[in-house]
Structures are given as C-alpha cells and as structure tokens.
C-alpha cells in the first residue's frame, strides 16, 4: 500500500463526486455532523449504531457488515472514499473495518471534513439514498487486529505504540480532553510502549504529513520496523489513524490495531501498567 492507493485529495474528491462506481461515506465522531451538511452524494455510517454490536462489546460481525453495506447500497466493486470529522479518526476506524472485511477499493479523503470545510468546499443537506446491493464480505482478516492476550504477550517483545496524547500516556488524563475524565479504568500505559501521539502524523488542517516526515517521526520515536507492531489508544479509533499511517501509507507489514485499547487494558485485573512519561520495563 502507499499514498497513491490509500488516499485521495480534496481536489480529486470534488472532481469525482458524481463519478460512477465511487461512493463517498462520512463517518464522524460527532454522529450528528452529517445532518448539518455532507459532501454531495455522500452516505453516512454511524460508528456507534452501525459499526458496533448492539449487545456485546465488539464490532459488527461479517453477516452484520454485509447487511449494513447491502442496505446502504455499497457493492463489492465500488471504490469507497471515507471521510469524517476530528482529523478522520473515525473514518480511519471505518477504513480498518473495510480492510478487515476484505473490501478491495477503499481510500481516505486526506484532511477529511476539516480541510473540506476550511477550504469552503460544497456541503449539502439533501437526503441521499442508494439502491440496495448484495454485499458479500470476506472472513475477518485478523492479521490487522490485536486482542488482549496478544498485547500482554507483546510487552518487551513487539513494538507497542501508544498513540494517545502525552498526558493520557503518562496517566495524567484518562480520555481525550474533549471528554469528561472520570472513567472506570486505571491510568497509564502498557509497559515498553513508545509514545507517538497520532497527531504527530497530521498537519493542522487534518491532512497527513509527507512520507519522509512520517518515517522520521516513527524512526526518532524508536520504532523498530523489523518487528511486528501493535498500535493502541483509548477505544481504537486514533490507533486506526496510526495503523493507517504505518501500514497503508508507509507500507509496513504486520501492523495490528488493538481496538480494545486502553478502555480494555486499563480495566484488566493483574496486568502491568507503567506510569509517567517513560516506556518502563517489561
């Protein structure tokens, strides 16, 4: 994978809004943002009600994903362009789902909603419906998804990359600062995890930094690209953004997103936790 295959620019998107076989899909952290204006022709996926299982703590299974995409009118042959607010956090999370379930052509809109809005490009409130399809998903590709036992076993052996803000890494905050801080889980990070906040990979307008800049950031942070890598954050969406950078833009192999992330790890009984700004010992 590379920038050419995984990313489209706002200019490209604006020229291809009506292109046949291209479906724009908005996925926001603020799930009401779509209704206030969206790219012309774009449909919406709600990361909470569409992408999460309504009962278990897990995301939708293969059959649920197939039903969702069929109902929204996305076919296996469509090129899906994902975009959203908050620097594409949740669009990157959806991108990771589409990859996990084997969608062939999926890309992120560089800069997402923010760049689109700051550029004053067109947003509309028209309802969008697409004819239903018969979407067929692949079995989940768990080579890009890490589970908790694997994460605990990775301490001191694989690259663990904590992509939360420095204060969350150190245990001074328990959530991103636009959310209340009182949470059930303990603060801190997984011992030996390096801190590379997701935001280091993005420019202020939400676009990704250049490949050279990205390689430098992870190189200086001490990421050993001969080892497997597991990225995590609080609930798995910011780490999808960093997973996208490492695997889809820089072409690293064996990068996994730990979507259980800190809300799971910080609630486990008996696992080691490191506090403060240093990675800590295995």
């Amino acid at each position, binding site marked *: 994978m590379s920038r050419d295959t995984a990313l489209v620019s706002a200019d490209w998107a604006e020229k291809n809004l009506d292109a046949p076989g291209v479906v724009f899909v908005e996925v*926001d952290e603020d799930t009401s*943002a779509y209704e206030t204006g969206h790219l012309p022709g774009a449909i919406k996926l709600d990361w*909470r009600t569409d992408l999460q299982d309504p009962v278990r*703590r897990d995301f939708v299974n293969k059959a649920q994903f197939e039903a969702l995409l069929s109902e929204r009118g996305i076919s296996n042959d469509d090129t899906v362009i994902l975009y959203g607010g908050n620097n594409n956090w949740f669009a990157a999370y959806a991108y990771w789902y589409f990859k996990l379930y084997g969608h062939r052509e999926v890309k992120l809109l560089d800069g997402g909603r923010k760049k689109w809005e700051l550029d004053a490009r067109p947003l509309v409130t028209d309802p969008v419906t697409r004819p239903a399809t018969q979407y067929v998903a692949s079995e989940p590709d768990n080579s890009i998804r890490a589970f908790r036992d694997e994460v605990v076993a990775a301490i001191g052996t694989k690259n663990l990359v904590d992509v939360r803000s420095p204060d969350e890494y150190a245990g001074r*905050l328990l959530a*991103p600062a*636009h959310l209340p801080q009182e949470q059930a889980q303990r603060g801190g990070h997984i011992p030996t995890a390096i801190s590379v*906040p997701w935001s280091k990979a993005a420019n202020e307008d939400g676009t990704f930094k250049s490949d050279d800049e990205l390689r430098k950031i992870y190189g200086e942070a001490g990421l050993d690209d001969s080892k497997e890598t597991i990225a995590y954050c609080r*609930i798995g969406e910011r780490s999808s953004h960093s997973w996208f950078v490492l695997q889809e833009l820089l072409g690293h192999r064996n990068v996994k997103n730990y979507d259980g992330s800190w809300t799971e790890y910080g609630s486990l009984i008996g696992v080691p936790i490191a506090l403060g700004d240093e990675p800590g010992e295995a």
Partner: protein
Amino acid sequence: MTAPTAAGCAAPDQAAPLPASIDLEKETVITGVVRSTQGEAVPGAYVRLLDSTGEFTAEVVTSPAGQFRFFAAPGNWTLRALSRHGNGDAAVTADRGIHEVTVTVTD
C-alpha cells in the same frame, strides 16, 4: 437501538450545559468562545487544546454561538483556533473548576 456507551467517544454538543454528573471538584474545565476581531462569535471553528509542550490533546468544533469546552487537568495549556475567518491562540493556566477563555481569530 443504541449501542452501549462505555466505549463512547462521541463529541459532545459544545453548547449543551455541563452534565449534572460532572464533578467540578475533580474536573478541570476549559471553556469559552471563539470571536472575530470585531467581537462576533465564530461558529464552526476548529479549536485544539495543546499541552505545555505544544502537543495536541484534543480538538472540538465550536457551536453555533462559537462555544467550545475541554476537560483537562491542572496545568498550562494553549488553545489554538482555526477558522475560515483566520486563526488565533490563547494561553491558559488551569486548576480544578471552570476556566473561561476567549480566543480571537485574525486573518
């Protein structure tokens, strides 16, 4: 059907009153309004909270009345706003409780 919100990360409505469950003895709330140089509220501005090293901590979009709100921790923070009317910064030293800050954006 609403999914459980334990993993919830939905950006809260910036104009909504503070939920009653928020304990101001424990939370450090940094809130305020983004204004143009003419003093008008700027809705739809992107406001980010940077920590004492300048690293990104969070970002929200201002409400129709230009409001933003963060839940931080005691310390020194910088607010940085981006909008179609220009950009601006404001520094804040926060302790527990509510801190109100105005960020003025200029071209």
